């Protein structure tokens, strides 16, 4: 492993095409995904369309992120100073293992054996729950969707809606069979009505909120100037975790900073409209260090690198660090809509995952992901901070090929085809000869091709392929002097005038 972003990818995950295969056949999953993404997509379009300055907001968000990353070193030091000044403590973690160790040590120091958790991508990325379990600490997810995933011993398949691949009938089964293992069981007669499911989760979680002495959270934003950390959520469960326990530990990627408090104005408009399709999210919690008599008495901020510095060093790829984890790109992605998140084999699925994961872990450890896109561009249009995902995808594809070349893993069959095509296309004469050969070959095959061999069979499994015509355009052009000598053409023109 050359990348330091360990745990971002799930160990033993197959390549994207392989992982997608069984998922594409799961009709229940396809239905769940289609319904969910269509709904969110329509909501997002409605609330972004109603703002006259939406494009200006996107531009402002992009500019802020760009500026922050350009001076990231300075802003991070400023953040450390302001958090410390406000009574918090800052810890630096170079990778996932170090972040997990810091958190486990902090929990042990409190004498507690359990923590409540707010939905957090950073701790998903480090595999914190598993690391804490090894250290004898139980971590309870309190976000409703994360709870569903945890109870089912499952993996999240979406950044915002980790259980998007589940429908309510499945959730009822998960609650009935698994809640008792983690605490208060679900009622015997639990129905799959959303209200009943929410009530079961509420009762199950409440005993954890009231008992917990330590909470672990992620962060949506941290303000370098003031040391303020912000978490944006819908359910209020995060607010419970942020206010009730005595100790709060926040794990945050180093790119999540904004320079000044006023900058939040831009992102707090961009994020809810892009993610849940709401004008404003129900709960926005902000805290600055510790405040005696109000909320946690100890606050720790763990700043996580885990491959981000390496990503920042890539001039073309670094824009992936602008991501504010809204997941709009997942919801509009035609590939994600068909496969769901698990096919990406990573904490970060969808288009943003396809550009972020390979950079965090090194392209050779996620080589199929940059190719898991048609480059249709829907993600770029939807991105609230204008990450040009197609541009980064093609950049990373080149990195994958160059890495293979460097390790002398080329020529593969593909590389041979590319080289041959390059040679043919380098010369109009060779192109003309190839066209002639193709048209002769094609005529032997009849009207269309229904079955091709080898890797090309992927095409003919579901599509016919027309055979090349008897005469290429360039052959026709030469033969007829650009149509001037063409019998049919002349006739057409005569009749036309």
């Amino acid at each position: 492993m050359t990348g330091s972003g360990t745990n971002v990818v799930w160990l033993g995950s197959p390549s994207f095409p392989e992982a997608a295969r069984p998922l594409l056949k799961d009709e229940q999953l396809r239905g769940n995904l289609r319904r969910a993404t269509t709904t969110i997509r329509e909501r997002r379009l409605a609330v972004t369309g109603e703002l006259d300055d939406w494009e200006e907001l996107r531009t402002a968000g992009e500019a802020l992120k760009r500026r922050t990353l350009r001076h990231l070193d300075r802003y991070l030091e400023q953040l450390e100073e302001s958090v410390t000044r406000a009574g918090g403590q800052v810890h630096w973690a170079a990778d996932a293992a170090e972040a997990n160790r810091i958190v486990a040590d902090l929990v042990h120091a409190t004498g507690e054996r359990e923590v409540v958790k707010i939905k957090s991508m950073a701790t998903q990325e480090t595999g914190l729950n598993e690391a804490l379990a090894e250290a004898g600490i139980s971590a309870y997810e309190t976000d409703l969707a994360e709870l569903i995933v945890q109870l089912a011993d499952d993996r999240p398949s979406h950044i915002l809606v980790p259980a998007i691949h589940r429908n309510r009938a499945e959730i009822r089964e998960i609650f009935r069979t698994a809640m008792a293992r983690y605490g208060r069981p679900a009622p015997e007669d639990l129905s799959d009505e959303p209200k009943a499911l929410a009530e079961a989760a509420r009762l199950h979680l409440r005993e954890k909120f009231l008992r917990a002495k330590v909470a672990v959270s992620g962060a949506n934003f941290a303000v370098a100037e003031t040391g303020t950390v912000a978490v944006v959520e819908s359910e209020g469960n995060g607010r419970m975790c942020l206010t009730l326990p005595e100790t709060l530990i926040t794990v945050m990627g180093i790119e999540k900073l904004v320079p000044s408090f006023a900058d939040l104005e831009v992102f707090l408009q961009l994020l809810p409209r892009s993610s849940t399709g709401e004008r404003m999210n129900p709960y926005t919690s902000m805290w600055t260090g510790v405040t005696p008599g109000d909320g946690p008495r100890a606050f720790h901020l763990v700043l996580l690198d885990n491959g981000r510095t390496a990503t920042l060093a890539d001039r073309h790829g670094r824009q992936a660090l602008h991501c504010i984890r809204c997941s709009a790109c997942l919801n509009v992605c035609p590939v994600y809509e068909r496969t769901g998140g698990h096919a990406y084999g990573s904490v970060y699925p969808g288009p943003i995952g396809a550009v972020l994961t390979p950079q965090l872990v090194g392209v050779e450890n996620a080589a199929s992901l940059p190719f898991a896109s048609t480059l249709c561009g829907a993600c770029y249009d939807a991105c609230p901070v204008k990450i040009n995902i197609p541009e980064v995808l093609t950049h990373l594809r080149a990195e994958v090929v160059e890495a293979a070349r460097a390790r002398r893993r080329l020529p593969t069959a593909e590389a041979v085809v590319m080289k041959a095509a390059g040679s043919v296309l380098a010369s109009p004469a060779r192109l003309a000869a190839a066209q002639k050969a193709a048209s002769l070959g094609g005529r032997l095959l009849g009207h269309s091709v229904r079955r091709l061999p080898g890797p090309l069979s992927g095409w003919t499994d579901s599509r016919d392929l027309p055979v090349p015509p008897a005469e290429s355009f360039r052959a026709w052009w030469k033969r007829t002097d650009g149509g001037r000598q063409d019998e049919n053409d002349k006739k057409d023109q005569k009749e036309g005038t």
Partner: protein
Amino acid sequence: MRLALFLTCFNDTLHPQTGKAVVRLLERLGHRVDFPLQQTCCGQMHFNTGYRPETLPLVRRFAEVFAEYDAVITPSASCAGMVREGHPVTAAQYGDHGLRGAVADLLPRVYELSEFLVDELKVTDVGAYYPHRVTYHPTCHSLRMLRVGDKPLQLLRAVRGIDLVELPGADSCCGFGGTFALKNSETSTAMLADKLREVRGTGAGVLSAADNSCLLHIGGGLARLRSGVRTVHLAEILASTEEAAV
């Protein structure tokens, strides 16, 4: 005005009728178009599959072959997009100063067909006649790379005899994506299946687009289903007249 047709290697080889349609259409509008025989390919396949050094000679060839023309017209939104976005990137990464300049100089003169007709020739009614029920798939690169908007539809709406019906979910990708259709053929097929359902639901006998590559993909699916729906490039519909029907 010296006009050049950049037909693309794909159309040159597989869809000569599209090139002939562009020539006929532009001549009907009073413009002689040249087809410089030294042209080959924009390099999109190499570029999008990660073979950037191999893209460079094709970028150089393109810049040289078309340098002297006032306008370069292509009936492929995707290849126009490659020229506009991929050529500067390739030239910046691997080219010399001269190539970067040549690419930058040529780019503003490269047009996708509907852009050239609507923006440059300022024409939407090209005098076409096409008495068929047609639905139009606006390809991803025409919509989100070139931003042609509804220019192709403006042109189609002005065609006499046409019964133009809306394609639901039109802006969704058909699942082609070049080598994506091979590397991720199952995902591609799942996307295609949804597109085929929408196309067939319109009751149209003809599916049109500004790109034959997407049409090859959707058309391949339609043919496999024996659907009876034909795929016809936008240029061919626009070239069609009562006297010379396509």
